[in-house]
């Protein structure tokens, strides 16, 4: 890049020029983010009365990590999906979830008050500090049916949660829910339609869709397990008790599975270890692989700017 591009020379038809300009007159930025906290007006809203800031930060991490890790798994499909259209669809879905994650992580960092921004939280935490459910971290092993099955469970559950969080007393959680409900509606429809196409398709696609459902099914139970943080915050009108969305999620899954001529698996859930699972920072071996890839650049080049 050559000399400083002044405002006088600004070319409104060149979308990249304004980004280059901003490097000159803004603070240096991370190569990995753009400092959403500086510009997202709601993130600095006060913590609602009667709410423990540590609980709110933990809850924002839960919702944010679910979205972040699922987004990273979806992004693995870029250039790998069976058709270009699905490549684009999965990338768009990943992008929506990443946007939700950025705001939630920024909110967590702000409320926590320990000078950790979205980038530090995403790129410099270790496995036990992540609060996502195991479903988000499972590998697809480039099996498209697995991606569909996971997205069906994940989006059905998250849509039900966010729908109830529209009235959250935390303005950031409510704002993310407001946008997320619209986005998740598309994600769920996408996953449900592919479940139908594959389940009610050929013998081979039916067999593989059923196998994919069986693979993700043991991770469904965790989605309805209420952590102490969620219980306290649900009582304070900030969170939703995930146990409350079980009936709605079950009804949607049953409808899709039935119409897809598939069978609802009866495989038991993976259970907990001493009562702990994703919400308490206990993860499957798969999360380490996700983080190794997601965090490698930030860890090799700490504080890099562009």
């Amino acid at each position, binding site marked *: 890049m050559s000399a400083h591009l002044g*405002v*006088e020379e*600004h070319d*409104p038809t060149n*979308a990249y020029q*304004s*980004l280059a*300009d*901003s490097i000159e007159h803004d603070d240096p930025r991370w190569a990995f983010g*753009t400092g959403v906290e500086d*510009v*997202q*007006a*709601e993130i600095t809203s006060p913590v609602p009365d009667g709410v423990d800031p540590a609980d709110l930060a933990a809850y924002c991490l839960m919702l944010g990590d679910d979205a972040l890790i699922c987004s990273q798994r979806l992004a693995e499909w870029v250039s790998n999906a069976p058709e270009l*259209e699905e490549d*684009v*669809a999965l990338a*768009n*879905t990943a*992008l*929506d*979830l*990443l*946007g*939700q994650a*950025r*705001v939630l992580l920024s909110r967590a960092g702000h409320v926590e008050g320990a000078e950790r921004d979205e980038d530090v939280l995403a790129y410099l935490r270790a496995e036990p500090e992540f609060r996502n459910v195991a479903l988000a971290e499972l590998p697809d092993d480039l099996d498209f049916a697995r991606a569909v099955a996971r997205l069906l469970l994940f989006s059905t559950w998250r*849509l*039900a949660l966010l*729908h109830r969080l529209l009235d959250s007393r935390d*303005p*950031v959680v*409510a*704002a*993310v829910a*407001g*946008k*997320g*409900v*619209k*986005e998740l*509606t*598309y994600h*769920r*429809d*996408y996953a*449900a*339609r592919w479940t*139908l196409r594959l389940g009610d398709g050929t013998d081979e696609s039916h067999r593989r869709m059923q196998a994919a459902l069986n693979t993700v099914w043991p991770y469904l139970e965790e989605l309805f397990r209420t952590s102490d943080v969620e219980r306290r915050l649900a009582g304070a009108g900030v969170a939703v008790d995930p146990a409350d969305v079980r009936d*709605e999620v079950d009804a*949607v899954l049953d*409808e*899709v599975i039935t*119409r897809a001529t598939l069978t609802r698996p009866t495989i038991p859930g993976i259970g907990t270890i001493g009562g702990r699972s994703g919400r308490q920072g206990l993860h499957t071996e798969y999360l380490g692989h996700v983080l190794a890839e997601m965090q490698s650049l930030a860890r090799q080049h700490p504080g890099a700017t562009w």
Partner: protein
Amino acid sequence: MLTLEDLGVVRGVEADGDAVTVTITPTYSGCPAIEVMRDDLRAQLTAAGFARVEVRTVFSPAWSTDWISEAGKRKLVEHGIAPPDRAGARPTGPIPLTLTAPTAVVRCPRCGSPATEEFSRFGPTACTALRRCVACREPFEHMKEI
């Protein structure tokens, strides 16, 4: 030119002497264009003589395609993008599952034919779906309702 105001992305402008505050909202949570919009606004307002320019981004209320002006919809068609239908109010109660392709008529922005079909709900940007025209055979983008 299709403006940010046409798109309903600009939510407020407050000018006070040589200071101006503009509030914008992203279309989708992960919209990567929001930063370009912010920097463009900053550059243009600085060029227009404002010494202090602040661009705030808000998430709430969530952007809706219903905020796109009539002029904006016309300009979208001029740019080869089929405008969204009305998204309407959010239903009360659980959000219904949609297992079949939407049946609303979307006219081809090139030839005007109503005979078009969706082939992917997700287009090159978060806010568009991909369709093709059965009459003139051209593919085109459709801004989907949210």
